[in-house]
């Protein structure tokens, strides 16, 4: 017998204490009550006769003591969660590797998932091992802590804590170098590489599934403010499926499309999102029968606004006016510097060779601003600078080529900091740098973003470059925080923001922890997550399964319910019984004995 609830030393001490306590209580006789009787003549005569029954009396006393000891030991042993070793079985060490890759979440015809069947199998294997054997649970997603085999209780606890991991790259784990029987429970879809000594138990069963294998929202290179959704759908079912695709946004009824997909067919769709407003976009596919739901929906974020109000404050710039006038979904108001006041309202402000005394109440694009109290002052003017370096990864410079940029003169400013009044908060990033470290274009990621160009358009050939409208569109998009969501798969997600707060689509906080200059959180289900960093930086993360491999739930070489010979031998030798429920039996025994003791006491059989 082994004890799951306590260590051997502790259970030994408990049992010993119980025995001592019971014996002590038996020896501890309370002082008898004194009763005066007229004469003890008859009592003495009677007790003299009774003395002939001393042996039976002693037997009764011992019987009572044994009863009390059995009751006490039953209760004490029951507390220790005992388990009997199966007679005739040698000590067996059992290692169970359980596949918890995404496809294990597929439902079977019986209504259980492959994962639930796998857990049931694993539990049976653990319970069938010898009580004094060692047990280890491992999984293909690295959730189970690596280590040496331990007791059954620990293994069962680990098993109870495992879940299907939708993301990551599942792989067969490294086995500890101890002699152990290895069982691998899998559907055979995503994990292979099991060692030959592992007895394989298949929980595979063909299932219907139609899933989204790709989902992306991207701007058109030729028209940066226009976005399309790329959706790829796969029919992984063994039959042809009628599939309904629905795309819905935050402020419209969405798009609905029905298509017929043959077995194994993958079809891509490009959907114009012009009718969608800024915000989350959700794609959902439905079919008549679908056993794997995790790939039925995908999320994205449409960054562009339907209509952006731009205030252009300029003494006169045909380049800017013309290019902005050609931008779609943009409402332009041109204001002379003399007419500008703090009451002017717009989504984005563009100051051309002008800067108001106070910072505007929104994001701003500035071209060679004069000195103002809220801006870093100009140090000098640099003649004919080059632009040898720029950061094409920055959203403002995406698709922008500056090789042919020529500038007559540019202002040198003290950078960083960007703002005179906020040295800590207003750190600027140089995204275009001239020779001798001359900052030509700087961006600031404050609550109201700023893009500062340190030369005038008239002093350069920038307005004549093909990339100028793209720059303007990018700059407006970035200023409006118009960026598509980061694409990630379920599981551990890292975002390049330190000490950020993560919320899901419903605004619920998600547990996240900092990791160097990044933030890490666990996205167990597909969804759209918002990551807000310190200051005003913000990112959106679209976590989608979107994987052809994960949607191919029938891509297995295993037969349905296949069990290798070794495993079937173990299963056949299973002894269903209340091994791990022995404590209940012990407590019931104690209860029965207490009742027996009560009856015998009241009938004075044991005293």
């Amino acid at each position, binding site marked *: 017998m082994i004890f799951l609830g306590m260590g051997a030393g502790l259970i030994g001490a408990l049992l010993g204490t119980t025995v001592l306590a019971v014996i002590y209580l038996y020896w501890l006789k309370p002082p008898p*009550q004194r*009763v*005066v009787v*007229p*004469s*003890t*003549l*008859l009592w*003495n005569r009677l007790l003299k006769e009774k003395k002939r029954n001393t042996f039976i009396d002693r037997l009764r006393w011992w019987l009572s003591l044994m009863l009390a000891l059995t009751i006490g030991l039953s209760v004490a042993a029951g507390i220790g969660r005992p388990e009997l070793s199966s007679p005739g079985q040698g000590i067996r060490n059992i290692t169970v590797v359980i596949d918890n890759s995404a496809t294990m979440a597929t439902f079977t015809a019986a209504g259980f998932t492959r994962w639930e069947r796998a857990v049931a199998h694993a539990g049976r294997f653990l319970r069938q091992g010898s009580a004094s054997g060692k047990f280890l649970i491992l999984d293909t997603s690295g959730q189970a802590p690596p280590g040496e085999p331990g007791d059954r209780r620990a293994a069962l606890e680990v098993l109870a804590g495992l879940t299907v991991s939708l993301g990551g790259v599942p792989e067969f784990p490294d086995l500890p170098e101890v002699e152990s029987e290895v069982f691998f429970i899998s559907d055979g879809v995503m994990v292979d590489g099991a060692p030959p000594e592992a007895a394989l138990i298949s929980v595979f069963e063909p299932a219907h599934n139609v899933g989204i294998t790709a989902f992306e929202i991207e701007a058109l290179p030729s028209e940066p403010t226009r976005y399309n959704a790329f959706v790829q759908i796969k029919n992984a079912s063994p039959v042809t499926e009628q599939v309904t695709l629905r795309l819905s946004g935050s402020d419209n009824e969405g798009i609905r499309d029905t298509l017929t997909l043959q077995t194994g067919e993958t079809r891509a769709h490009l959907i114009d999102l012009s009718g969608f407003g800024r915000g989350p976009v959700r794609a959902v596919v439905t079919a008549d029968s679908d056993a794997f739901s995790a790939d039925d929906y995908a999320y994205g974020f449409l960054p562009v606004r339907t209509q952006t109000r731009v205030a252009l404050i300029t003494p006169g710039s045909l380049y800017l006016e013309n290019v902005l006038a050609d931008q779609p979904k943009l409402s332009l108001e041109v204001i002379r510097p003399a007419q500008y006041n703090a009451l002017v309202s717009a989504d984005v402000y563009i100051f051309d060779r002008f800067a108001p005394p106070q910072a505007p109440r929104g994001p701003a694009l500035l071209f060679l601003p004069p000195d103002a109290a809220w801006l870093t002052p100009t140090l000098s003017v640099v003649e004919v600078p080059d632009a040898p370096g720029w950061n094409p990864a920055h959203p403002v410079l995406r698709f922008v080529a500056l090789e042919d940029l020529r500038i007559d003169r540019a202002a040198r400013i003290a950078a960083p900091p960007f703002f005179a009044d906020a040295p800590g908060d207003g750190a600027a990033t140089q995204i275009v740098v001239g020779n001798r470290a001359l900052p030509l274009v700087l961006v600031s990621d404050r609550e109201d973003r700023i893009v500062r160009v340190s030369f005038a358009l008239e002093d350069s050939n920038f307005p004549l470059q093909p990339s100028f409208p793209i720059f303007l569109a990018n700059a407006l998009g970035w200023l409006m925080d118009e960026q598509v969501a980061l694409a990630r798969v379920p599981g551990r997600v890292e975002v390049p923001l330190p000490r950020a707060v993560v919320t899901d689509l419903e605004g619920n906080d998600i547990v996240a922890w900092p990791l160097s200059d990044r933030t890490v959180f666990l996205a167990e289900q597909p969804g759209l997550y918002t990551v807000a960093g310190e200051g005003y930086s913000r990112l959106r993360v679209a976590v989608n399964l979107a994987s052809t491999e994960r949607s191919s739930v029938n891509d297995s070489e295993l037969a349905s319910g296949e069990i290798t010979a070794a495993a079937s031998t173990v299963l056949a030798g299973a002894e269903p019984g209340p091994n791990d429920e022995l404590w209940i039996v012990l407590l019931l025994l104690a209860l029965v004995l207490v009742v027996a003791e009560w009856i015998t006491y009241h009938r004075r059989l044991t005293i």
Partner: protein
Amino acid sequence: MSEKGTLFDDEFLKKLEYLNLVSNHMIPGHMHGEHRAKKKTDSGIEFADYRQYVSGEDTKNVDWRTYLRLDKLILRLFEEEADLPIYIFFDASGSMEYGAPVKFDYARKIAAALCYVGLLNQDRVNLVGFADGIAHELSARRGKHQVWHAFRFLEEAEPHGATAMEKAFKAFFSSRRRRGLVVVVSDFLDEQGFSRAFDMLRYFKQDLFAVHIHTPEEAHPDLPDEVLLEDAELGTSQRVRVTPALLEAYAEQFEEHCEEVGGYCRKNGWGYLRTTTDVPFEDLILQVFRQGRFLK
């Protein structure tokens, strides 16, 4: 504790009067002082028998007519009514100071009642309290006027010590005592056994009437599981683990003891009456009368 001073109150005396009336009614026409025993003597009125004349005897009762017919000297004998004494022994040992009401009080009331009836019947009544010998003794009395004397004696008696009936009887009857009726009121819990004491009475040719008193609890005690039994007479104690079986065995033992006493009496033609202290004493006295041994 036994009662003092209030044992023989007015209520008790009324009951005694009632018992006396009942005793007269139960035995109609009986004569005071003459009903106990008949002795064939040369005095008296009622002819009883003849016997051979022995030389030297008084010739006044010689039947001369018979002499003339048979030529033999024959004496005529007459029955002489003799009043036989009553010896009332009441147990004054420690074991009698037990129960509610106390057995000793109950025994004294019985002794008082029998004494009262005896004195009113002009019998000679002796009152003896015994324990491990004679503890209290009131010499023979006769006549109604001795009642108060007897009551005072009973009231002043106190229970104490162990029981030794044989010793008490031996001490009492060793000095010359006339044959009479011995009434013993006791619980008969004698370490030496009652039979030797009774044998002693047989030896002295006394007639016995035994009144066996015990409390209901004595017959069926209600004791806790573990008990230290203390002997009221000897002061010794005995640790007993009480079980229903033991209590049952004790009850049987007690019955056996009572049966032993009663059986001995019946075997010897003696009177025996067993009672518990919850029976009103007057009812007990009536039972004594009904047995016919006290009143003849």
